[in-house]
């Protein structure tokens, strides 16, 4: 899926990203909700207040497991061109990270345990001022991007050496 913004060709995350986000959110919220629910059941002294807080937490969790991954997936976009890498993400508050190609120092491809199930990888680009991750990429696509970026870094370094 592609989208056009300010004349830039932004690319959406792989479709498997949504499933990966749902599973990650389910695990995180499960770790919170299972002990919380057991506490409310086993300790009657927590009373109505405990039940109300638990109900609200469940509602937030359901929203984060069902709705939020869908919105995050819709919002997530990246763009790699000759000049820069751009990553747009967020839910209601959108942020855009822009990394000029000239500032790249290091490229790293990584894969978390959940991402591995869906064959998804992250390409992390490092500059002198921090790093930015291009997430939810199919493994082959991630390798392709990493290779292209490595080549670009080498070309820039060579050009720099020639300039000196």
């Amino acid at each position, binding site marked *: 899926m592609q989208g056009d913004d300010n004349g830039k060709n932004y690319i959406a995350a792989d479709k498997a990203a949504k499933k990966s986000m749902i599973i990650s959110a389910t695990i995180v919220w499960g770790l919170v909700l299972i002990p919380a629910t057991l506490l409310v059941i086993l300790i009657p002294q927590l009373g109505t207040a405990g039940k109300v807080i638990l109900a609200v937490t469940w509602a937030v969790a359901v929203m984060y497991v069902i709705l939020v991954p869908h919105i995050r997936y819709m919002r997530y976009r990246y763009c790699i061109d000759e000049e820069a890498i751009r990553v747009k993400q967020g839910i209601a*508050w959108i942020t855009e990270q*822009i990394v000029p190609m*000239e500032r790249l120092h290091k490229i790293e491809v990584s894969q978390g345990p959940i991402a591995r199930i869906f064959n998804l990888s992250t390409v992390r680009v490092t500059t*002198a*001022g921090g790093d930015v991750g291009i997430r939810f990429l199919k493994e082959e696509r991630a390798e392709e991007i990493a290779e292209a970026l490595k080549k670009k870094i080498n070309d820039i370094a060579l050009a*720099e050496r020639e300039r000196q």
Partner: protein
Amino acid sequence: MKEIKLRCHFSTIFESLWQFWVVIVFMLLNQIDTIIDVVKDIGSDGIKSLVSTGGIWGLAGLLVLTACVLIFQFLRWRKTWVILDDNLIIIERNTLRKVKNTIAIENISAVNMERNLFERLVGTYRIKIDTNSMTTANETDISIVFREDIAIAFRKTVIERMSALKGSGTGKALSEERQPDELYKAASEGKKIFASSPKDMLAHAFYDMPMFSLIIALAGICGSVWYIGNMGFTAFIRDAFGGFIAVVIMVLTAIYNIAKRFIKYYNFTVYRDGKDVHVRCGLIKLRSYTIPVDKITALQIEQQPFSRIFKRYNVKVVTVGVGDEDGESSNLTMSLPEEKLKEQLQELVPEYSWADIAKVIKEEKKGMTVRLVKSVKWHLAAAAGIIVVVVLHGPWWAAAVPAVMDAYINLLYIMSHKAAGYMASDEGMILSGGFFAKHQTICTYKKMQILNISYHPAAAHLGIVDGVIMLLNSSAGLPYIKRDLAIEITNRIIGGQK
């Protein structure tokens, strides 16, 4: 080139020992009542009481511990070597834990010298070496102590090798080495030196003082005066002795804050030499640092609240190797009025002459609207806090706590809008931000590493954005600006070469 193998000065053994004793003294102070009792017993019953109470064992233990620390530090000193190879500095330590720290001279960004009171007494200098590495950007990579003449020669050799490695293509990369105490002699070579008088330093100490400590001190004094006026001094001492001690501590802290700055910046001297800026300051701990201008990430103009009121500015440099450690300053100037600031910056760092603080544009007015929208969550939290107090039947005045907190947070939003601003030129930007204190970061596009733009829903609706610009070991906030301008700035950052 010949390999140079050196040991640190043996005084480092004792320098570490006093740190151990400071810890012991603090521990003893915590048990001051027991110590007083023991001393009283010795006074009345003689040394026998020390044996009978078991205090002698404590004393013996302390002496054994001191001896252990001394032996440990001695072995550490004896087995630590500083090796200056062709283009490498190697720190080798063969104690229980073998460590070999190798640094390529070409990666060194700063070789600074400093000495504290102890080092001044024993005639040594501490050499601090920093590299360009981002992972150690906020700490000193190598810190070694040598006898004065060895330290000067060592630093000179390292700087010469750095210059040689940089090659002739870069011109005079580093200036001629000088002993910090002889800095004034440079004047005879036609360099323009900016030296601060005691009056300038006192003024700087005052203008640079954080308002928070002054407000607390003033509030404490006013409260005490009110209490004494209404209840009398005897009642104050009797009923509010803790408060009296607190007021004394507050006043002493405020005085200490001024004195600390005065001592730290005593005899502040700065001058430009070739491609470096040399700075020297300090009364007890003399610091001398060299800043290669090409290694400067950004300049930061700081204005504490007093400076804002009296329109004074002081400039710090953001660079690897200077101001890395707690209490270390990275000042380029003392507090100065605008005209003098411009004059000094023109002389010291003409590379940044494009940056004119008079041309800083205030943040878009719509920015305040977005901040008001952002503050809604705090109003809701404050309202919830007030309701909880009322429902729990707490004392009615307790509801003032969330109300005051809400008002303070809103004041922060207003102050951040007032401080926010920018100036964008072809070379770089000035980014202004802060709350009660104002910080203006001057940075060229080529030093900007990553641009993070945020689209808050309210801001997006109003066609404005804000963000953060990531620099090497620092960052600067982008105020609310029009979206088109953000795109233009993005293009300039992308266009700026490394």
